[in-house]
């Protein structure tokens, strides 16, 4: 007796809906076991997490602070994933965006008219993210270098560079030796909406709208989709794949860079430790869970940010490890990943057929290499 997967004739919508729901249930049960083992009533802890993340307008604004970088990096990563380019470098692109925005905010404020400092920081930060993404993109497009590793290595280089700058050359001379730059002049502050939640939210919504339009309605978006689904077909119909890789990654990197700009100009208003806290990695989960749909990215980013803020909250209120948020994220994604198979396949139990003696050997199909 054997269990096999059988391809469904139609993608099951019911399963599509059930998978995230059951995944959430699984994650909550798994988290409850962990909480029980550490002697905490899971209902109390979950209630505290919910309350901390979405309880009142202040909590929602704090959740938004974490959601904005997840939205922007999630959108950026989703573009690259559309064409099956594994951009794991969102973290580094975010860091470079933040770094260049810091440079502009601190040192160009004397050179530029004051109204133009913030726009300059935003544009140049996006360019920095795009440039950082362009290096692995060019290597992949023209030399076929595996992008998973290069984007990852670029993260470490960027993070070390950022840390070097605020520990060394850019350290605030009046900061009593505290590692971090001086506070930015007010002209470089990104306006805030409520609490610490800032105008980056508008950028994220606008970016999602533009992206949705571009992906659905333009030739470029179409080419991106075809290339992701079937690179061979894309080549046959004459799509310039190297150029597509580079343009998609420039856009992807620019959005991740923008996330970094918003972090330094909107939240911290200086460059210090805490710029690279893993948003770029969580972005991959965001993009995946939203099935690369721009509006889905915004929603998923907000929910995952809620888990992170909720985790911080139970740490402060109940002395529980904030890592609970990360654990729940993982426990949520595992069943979602596995479950997505069941939308296209169903399980069937097969009883072994009686072996007939002298059945002809199976021909070995030689796969041609692409």
């Amino acid at each position, binding site marked *: 007796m054997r269990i*096999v997967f059988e391809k469904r004739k139609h993608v099951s919508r019911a399963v599509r809906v059930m998978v995230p729901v059951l995944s959430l249930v699984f994650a909550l049960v798994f988290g409850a076991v962990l909480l029980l083992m550490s002697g905490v009533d899971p209902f109390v802890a979950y209630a505290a997490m919910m309350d901390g993340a979405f309880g009142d307008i202040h909590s929602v604004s704090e959740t938004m602070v974490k959601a904005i970088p997840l939205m922007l990096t999630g959108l950026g990563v989703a573009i690259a994933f559309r064409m099956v380019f594994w951009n794991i470098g969102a973290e580094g692109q975010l860091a470079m965006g933040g770094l260049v925005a810091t440079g502009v905010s601190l040192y160009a404020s004397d050179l530029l008219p004051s109204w133009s400092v913030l726009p300059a920081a935003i544009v140049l930060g996006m360019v920095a993210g795009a440039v950082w993404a362009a290096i692995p993109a060019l290597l992949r497009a023209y030399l076929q270098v595996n992008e998973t590793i290069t984007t*990852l*290595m670029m993260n470490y280089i960027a993070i070390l560079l950022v840390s*070097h700058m605020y520990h060394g050359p850019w350290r605030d001379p009046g900061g009593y030796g505290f590692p971090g730059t001086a506070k930015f002049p007010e002209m470089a502050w990104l306006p805030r909406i409520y609490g610490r939640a800032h105008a980056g939210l508008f950028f994220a919504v606008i970016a999602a709208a533009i992206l949705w339009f571009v992906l659905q309605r333009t030739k470029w978006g179409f080419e991106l989709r075809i290339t992701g689904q079937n690179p061979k077909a894309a080549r046959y119909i004459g799509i310039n794949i190297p150029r597509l890789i580079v343009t998609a990654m420039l856009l992807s990197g620019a959005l991740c860079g923008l996330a970094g700009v918003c972090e330094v100009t909107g939240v911290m208003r200086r460059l210090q430790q805490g710029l690279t806290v*893993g948003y770029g990695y969580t972005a991959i989960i965001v993009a995946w869970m939203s099935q690369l749909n721009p509006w889905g990215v915004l929603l998923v980013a907000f929910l995952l940010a809620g888990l992170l803020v909720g985790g911080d909250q139970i740490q402060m209120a109940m002395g529980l490890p904030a*890592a*609970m948020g990360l654990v729940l994220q993982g426990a949520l994604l595992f069943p979602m990943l596995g479950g997505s*198979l069941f939308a296209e396949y169903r399980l069937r139990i097969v009883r072994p057929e009686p072996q007939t003696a002298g059945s002809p050997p199976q021909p070995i*199909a030689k796969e041609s290499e692409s």
Partner: protein
Amino acid sequence: MNLSLFTSILSITIRAGTSLLYATIGEIYTERAGILNLGVEGMMMVGAVSAFAVAYHTDSLVLAVIVALLAGALLASVHAFLSISLRANQVVSGLTLTLFGTGLASFLGQRLGPGGTRLVGLVGPSLGRFPIPLLSDLPIVGSALFNQDLLSYGVYAIVPLAWWYLYKTRPGLYMRSVGENPQTADAMGIRVGAVRYLYTAVGGALAGLGGAHLSLAYTKGWTENITGGRGWIAVALVIFAMWDPLRAVIGAALFGGINAVQFRMQAAGTTIPAALLNMLPYIATIVVLVVITWWETLRKRIGAPGALGLPYAREEKG
């Protein structure tokens, strides 16, 4: 450079490279069987925290190492189940494993101390240096090579053993064939899924062992973010080593060596910023990768298992 400086750098290189080599060889085996597991960092974390917690509570280093091996293998099995049985995306599954493992380790680190307290800052039993008589008295290299902890000596054995198993034995051949061309391997009667499960678990166990070396011998205790990206470096080293256990030594020596040189340079108070020195291994990995790929296109393929990262389903043809 005087000789005692050389000896001390070599000694630190080996200590810093041990955990990297275990994790790298584990990931080489996993990838050779055709499974890409980006969860190394998470598995090392859980290996480190579980090893230290067990050592602290039971005083048994043997048990600590065993638990770390099992913990790594168990986490890797989750990835194996998702990517082999459920054909989930391996990149996303591996990344999730890293996030999950990092979170779980951090959670456990704050709960597994005496009476549910934190493990951070506790002093537990650790693997001390174990000088090998006579050999450790050799001039220059003796005290570096033969005055280490037992897990570092384990590396001396596992590297040639891993190479021999991969290239010179029948199971090693099966492993490579499953990673290169699962269709053919299946037609030859090799159970593709079972082989992939096995080496994914082996890879996880070795990553857990690497983590155990960190908390039992290298930092001697549990701290948040104890691995400091070593799991990711291991993933890069696999490519640096072109999926060959012997060449992994060169990569681990390079990374460990830069750690060691930096250690000495900070002590000597140089003017080269540590951050720039720290970047070197990452830049080197990119350069090596570019060179390998360029060379690879010239010579067709030389290292990467042909079916790396691709799920295998018998009934379908791609």
